[in-house]
């Protein structure tokens, strides 16, 4: 026997199972292993939330009351799915490229991101969906009641309010759990979609099972069933009212586009545009299957069940009356699935709208910081969603209570449809007509909605509940042309057709009229172009694969801005930090912030923010537009860096030219000075020689002493001249690199000894301080040339050291790769400005008359450079100090 307890238990187990499925799908999606979740089949099945409890139970009731008219609610969506798939594709493309999260978001985005419009759409959607949610509550409640009636063990409750409340609360809990588990920037809910896809299968199977049971189990086969349908007084005739039929087909077709929950599964949850192709035939097929057994069940119910039985419950009461409890429970689960899936998706869709367009703007403005709140507002968003879901379900429950729960399911559904269909003009106008404006959309929506409220919604509560019966009959304050069922005095129309006709007509007229006579804002123009020409603005159809796809987009963009290598390094390091293999890290807040910082170095903070925001969240301009900007920027940057490089090169060349010029000038000056110096150095001794040789030739009576003296002078000056010429030739040879070195193995100490002896030939009185232990180093060098340098330095010290007791210290030191021999005297040293000149030719310091030609140090420098070492002046040693540096390998090689 049917047991209410059994039913409750089965329902709870079913819900738990759904819960598990949703949870598993969510987990799989998070781990990126959800390939099969994104199949077109799942997409198509999720679309079946169009078939709610209204379809599951109500279609049979509809058929029992109005014959084949029930087919209209299937024909409309089928026409749209098959014939209008191109329009759907456009909407889906727009939704994807603009990151649309809801119907309200779509319309508000199109009309320049007007939040006023979003609020209007949201309110209409809430009001329009509330009857529908009430409808689901009612159907579940009625089905429970049907079971209760068949269960003798329970007392039939006085009313079903408690049941409805429990159902509402349970659905709210489920929706909160799965609809707001996390905040996906794309508003996708893999778990929920999977659960409703499963429910779609359950409800189809349940209805088919009842149908098969009806036709073959109790109806005696197809032939007898058809005969019974023919014979039925109510169902047998083709009562086609063309006005009502076309009105209903229009209504249901438009509802497919406009219903917030349909938009949610059709556009927002869409994983891949190509799924639409499958859905365009599979979804109508699903609906045909759903409607296949409606007539047989209706006929069987009418003929077999007692008069007065609710036709809306035939699907359930038929198996119950035949004692098929199992089938009845299955059927109940089908209806339950229909109701819950619709409510869950509708609540998610509505809560997204309410929280995004009403709660969040208010919260942000109350916090006074606008959109630039620095902290994490995700918890606020999630809380807003949860409150909205509970609020939406509570409204549904309230409507159910107010409307008394008695109205036929189909009637409530149609009223709901006609409410949301008010979105149609601004929606279609927005995506096909660039001239549509915000003012037009707003005016159309408000006028259409008001008409709907007056003609359809308020009267739906029943006579006298909201609108007094007098108003219905005679109009408000007796104004006849404002009667809800006969606007402008036009009577005789079906109330539904009347309401739909007037509301849509006024809506469209206002929309068109104001759009033509108002001007769009720049933002509206931009968005209008983006929407109407969406195919030019967005990439080819491509499946989104959650976070990784975003990361890849971010990577592509980053590569354009940072260069491939830099970007890859950044992404790889971030992936490693997150513990992910490869180049694609999870685009979490920390990474995005880091990326933005990196990018802002290239394009500036504002652009970087906009670009990252564009890829991760919704924004006004498409990714492709920004990509184009990025490409241009990259090109400009490259071009300008090329220019910069060129100008750098020019500057370098100019500098080199300047240096070369200065060198040439200096060389010319030096050459001049050199010639002058040579002239002077040669002429001076020659002057003495000439003068004294003339004296000895011309002057009579010179003494022997004078003769000897003058001859000596001539001799000395000749020697001086010879030495000068030797030096000059030596220097010329050294400078030209023609010198051939005579490399031998020699001890440093010996070379110094030789040098000291040679220098002392000049009768120097300078005292030498040496450390012979340090000097015990073998060298592979030209010892004569090295000695020449040492002689020069020792002789110079002897000539120029002006200390009272002149002293020269010779210090030998090994450094890393060099041997250093320092010659430091205790004289006044050489002035800083002269230090750079002393190695130049003919430079002589100070006033001293030292007799040299000033070539000594120049020769030393040349010799040292030939030996692979150097000679430098060592400042700050308390006297004149010269450092002779020799490469140490010369020393090591000799050891």
């Amino acid at each position: 026997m049917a047991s209410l307890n059994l039913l409750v238990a089965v329902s709870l187990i079913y819900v738990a199972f759904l819960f598990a499925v949703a949870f598993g799908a969510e987990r799989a999606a998070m781990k990126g292993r959800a390939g099969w979740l994104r199949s077109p089949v799942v997409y198509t099945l999720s679309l079946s939330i169009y078939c709610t409890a209204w379809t599951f139970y109500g279609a049979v009731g509809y058929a029992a009351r109005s014959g084949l008219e029930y087919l209209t609610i299937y024909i409309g969506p089928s026409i749209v799915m098959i014939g209008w798939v191109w329009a759907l594709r456009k909407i889906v493309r727009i939704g994807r490229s603009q990151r649309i999260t809801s119907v309200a978001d779509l319309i508000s985005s199109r009309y320049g991101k007007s939040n006023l419009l979003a609020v209007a759409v949201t309110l209409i959607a809430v009001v329009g969906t509330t009857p529908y949610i009430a409808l689901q509550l009612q159907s579940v409640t009625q089905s429970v009641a049907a079971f209760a009636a068949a269960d003798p063990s329970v007392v039939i409750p006085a009313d079903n309010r408690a049941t409805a409340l429990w159902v509402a609360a349970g659905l709210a809990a489920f929706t909160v759990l799965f609809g707001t588990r996390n905040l996906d920037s794309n508003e996708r809910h893999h778990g929920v979609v999977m659960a409703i896809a499963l429910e779609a299968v359950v409800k189809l199977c349940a209805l088919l099972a009842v149908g098969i049971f009806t036709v073959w189990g109790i109806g005696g086969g197809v032939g007898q069933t058809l005969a019974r349908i023919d014979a039925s007084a109510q169902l047998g005739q083709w009562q086609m009212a063309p006005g009502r039929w076309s009105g209903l087909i229009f209504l249901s077709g438009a509802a497919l586009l406009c219903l917030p929950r349909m938009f949610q599964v059709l556009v927002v949850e869409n994983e891949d545009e190509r799924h639409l192709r499958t859905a365009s035939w599979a979804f109508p097929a699903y609906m045909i299957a759903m409607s296949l057994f409606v007539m047989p069940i209706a006929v069987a119910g009418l003929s077999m069940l007692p008069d007065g039985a609710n036709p809306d419950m035939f699907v359930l009461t038929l198996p119950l009356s035949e004692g098929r409890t199992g089938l009845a429970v299955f059927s109940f689960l089908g209806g339950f699935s229909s109701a819950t899936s619709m409510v869950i998706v509708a609540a998610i869709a509505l809560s997204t709208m309410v929280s995004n367009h009403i709660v969040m703007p208010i919260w942000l403005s109350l916090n006074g910081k606008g959109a630039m709140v620095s902290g994490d507002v995700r918890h606020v968003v999630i809380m807003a969603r949860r409150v909205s879901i509970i609020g939406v379900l509570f409204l549904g429950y309230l409507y159910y209570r107010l409307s008394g729960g008695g109205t036929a399911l189909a009637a409530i559904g149609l009223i709901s449809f006609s409410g949301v269909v008010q979105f149609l003009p601004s929606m279609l106008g927005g995506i096909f007509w660039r001239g549509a404006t915000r003012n037009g959309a707003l005016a159309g929506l408000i006028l259409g909605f008001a008409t709907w409220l007056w003609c359809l919604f308020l009267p739906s509560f029943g006579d006298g509940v909201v609108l007094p019966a007098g108003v219905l009959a005679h109009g408000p304050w007796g104004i006849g042309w404002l009667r809800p069922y006969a606007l402008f005095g036009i009577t005789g129309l079906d109330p539904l057709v009347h309401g739909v006709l007037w509301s849509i007509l006024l809506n469209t007229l206002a929309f068109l009229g104001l759009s033509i006579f108002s001007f769009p804002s720049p933002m509206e123009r931009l968005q209008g172009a983006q929407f109407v020409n969406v195919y030019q603005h967005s990439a080819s159809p491509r499946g989104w694969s959650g976070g990784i796809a975003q990361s890849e987009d971010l990577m592509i963009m980053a590569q354009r801005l940072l260069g491939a290598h830099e970007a890859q390094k950044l992404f790889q390091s971030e992936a490693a930090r997150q513990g992910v293999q490869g180049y694609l890290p999870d685009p979490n807040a920390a990474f995005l912030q880091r990326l933005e910082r990196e990018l802002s170095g290239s394009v500036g903070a504002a652009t970087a923010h906009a670009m990252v925001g564009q890829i991760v969240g919704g924004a006004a301009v498409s990714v492709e537009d920004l990509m184009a900007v990025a490409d241009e920027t990259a090109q400009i940057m490259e071009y300008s860096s090329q220019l910069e490089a060129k100008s750098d090169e020019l500057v370098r060349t100019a500098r080199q030219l300047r240096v070369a010029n200065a060198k040439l000038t200096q060389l010319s000056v030096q050459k001049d000075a050199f010639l002058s110096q040579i002239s002077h150095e040669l002429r001076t001794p020659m002057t003495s020689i000439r003068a004294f040789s003339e004296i000895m030739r011309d002057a009579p009576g010179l003494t022997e002493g004078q003769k000897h003296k003058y001859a000596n002078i001539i001799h000395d000056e000749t020697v001086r001249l010879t030495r000068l010429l030797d030096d000059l030739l030596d220097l010329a040879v050294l400078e030209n690199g023609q010198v051939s070195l005579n490399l031998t193995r020699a001890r440093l100490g010996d070379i110094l000894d030789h040098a000291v002896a040679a220098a002392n030939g000049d009768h120097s009185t300078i005292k030498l301080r040496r450390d012979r232990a340090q000097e015990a180093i073998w060298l592979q060098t030209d010892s004569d040339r090295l000695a020449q340098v040492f002689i020069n330095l020792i002789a110079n010290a002897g000539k120029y050291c002006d200390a009272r007791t002149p002293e020269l210290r010779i210090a030998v030191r090994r450094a890393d790769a060099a041997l250093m021999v320092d010659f430091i005297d205790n004289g006044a040293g050489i002035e800083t400005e002269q230090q750079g000149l002393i190695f130049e030719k003919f430079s002589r310091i100070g006033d001293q008359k030292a007799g040299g030609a000033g070539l000594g140090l120049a020769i030393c420098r040349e010799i040292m450079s030939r030996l692979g070492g150097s000679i430098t002046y060592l400042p700050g040693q308390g006297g004149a100090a010269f450092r002779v540096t020799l490469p140490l390998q010369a020393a090591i090689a000799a050891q």
Partner: protein
Amino acid sequence: MGKSVLVIEDEPNIIEAISFILSRDGWHVATHSNGIDAVEAVRARRPDLVILDVMLPGRSGYDILRELRAGPETGGLPVLMLTARGQPKDRAMAEQIGASRFMTKPFSNAEVLEAVNDLIRA
């Protein structure tokens, strides 16, 4: 004959040679061998003639001549310039500053005698 000459020259052998030549010709020869205080030496000794080397330690012969020409007492003093630099611009420089005679080393003794006697007669 009290002709006096001041020889400003730093090369000892050249000083000796000039002194010998001029002394035998009856000149009273004084010598000075650095550039720094050469002008003071001229003012102190008041010679009839100055023989001035261009390259002197401490101060160039050109500078000394310039100062001598600027002074009221020495402005018209005959100055024979000697230089070991034989380039034309050295001669031009000397003439521009106001050297009475310019000779390049090495010189012939007879030329020097002729030059100084010319200068003292003028």
